[in-house]
């Protein structure tokens, strides 16, 4: 695979994520995990333990989710850049 293939594949991923937003303009897009939680609560089930700490607002929650993704992304980006740089340096040395 070359860069062109990568771009096409990433474009497909983006399309997969965007299509539902276009097809279903009125959907709520709540979480499936939350959906199951709601369904269980509807049976009259009472959770016997609650989270020790909850993010005080949706903003804080999205901050922490963004942080989680950022930590992962920075490691992936570092790895790819490092390996590419190492390879490029080898090539330059070999051509000298």
């Amino acid at each position, binding site marked *: 695979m070359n860069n062109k293939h990568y771009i096409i594949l990433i474009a497909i991923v983006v399309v997969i994520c965007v299509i539902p937003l276009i097809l279903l303009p009125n959907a709520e897009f709540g979480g499936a995990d939350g959906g199951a939680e709601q*369904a*269980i609560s509807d049976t009259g089930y009472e*959770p016997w333990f609650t989270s020790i700490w909850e993010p005080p607002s949706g903003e804080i*929650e999205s901050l922490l989710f963004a942080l*989680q993704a950022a930590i992962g*992304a920075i490691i992936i980006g570092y790895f790819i850049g490092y390996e590419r740089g190492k390879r490029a340096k080898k090539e330059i040395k070999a051509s000298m």
Partner: protein
Amino acid sequence: MHIMEGFLPHPWWEIWFAISIPIVIYGIYRLIKITKNVPESKPLLALMGAFIFVLSALKIPSVTGSCSHPTGTGLSAVIMGPGITSVLSMIVLVFQSLLLAHGGLTTLGANLFSMGIAGPLLAYAIWKICQKADVKPAIGIFLAAALGNLFTYVVTSFQLALAIPIGNSFFDGFLFFGGIFAITQIPLAIAEGILAVILFDFLAKYKGQLLATLKVIKIPKMKKTVEVKQ
């Protein structure tokens, strides 16, 4: 796939802990062994953990009008093995249950089993079968990652149906919870499969030797397409 805090009654939360803990201990043993025998695999380990971190943080809209998230564990299972993947998954699940109130400590055993053990095991098995059958690596990785992702949610539905009575039988409950997760998850599984293929392809090009050492692939396909951007 996150079962929320307190949503698994006794004795189920204990049962899933009892099943998951030995596997995580085995994973820690594998982790120590692999970093000792193949120290150059450490960056790869970080990369796999990072991949799980990113993918499990992304809640993606789906065709059912609800959102769910990929797991990212299939690729790690293929490269580092299912044992180590269970340890990496545990780190993510603990982070999410403590800081995000997503999942929970009491349901950690069950969530760990679905995301960190069952999904990765299936992904690993699919990869091995594809290798035996000489299927192209890209297709093998796609199937492993996508089906591992789906299977995680099948297992979650199974766990919930066992613990929470809905409908007349266990099977009713399984279909009910499966209905909440399964269709939502299909496009996300495809997306995860594609992302795993991209990263695997990069690794095969740049870390072929290491993947061969780890017995992920047989012949390193190095020096095939090396592009140097000017």
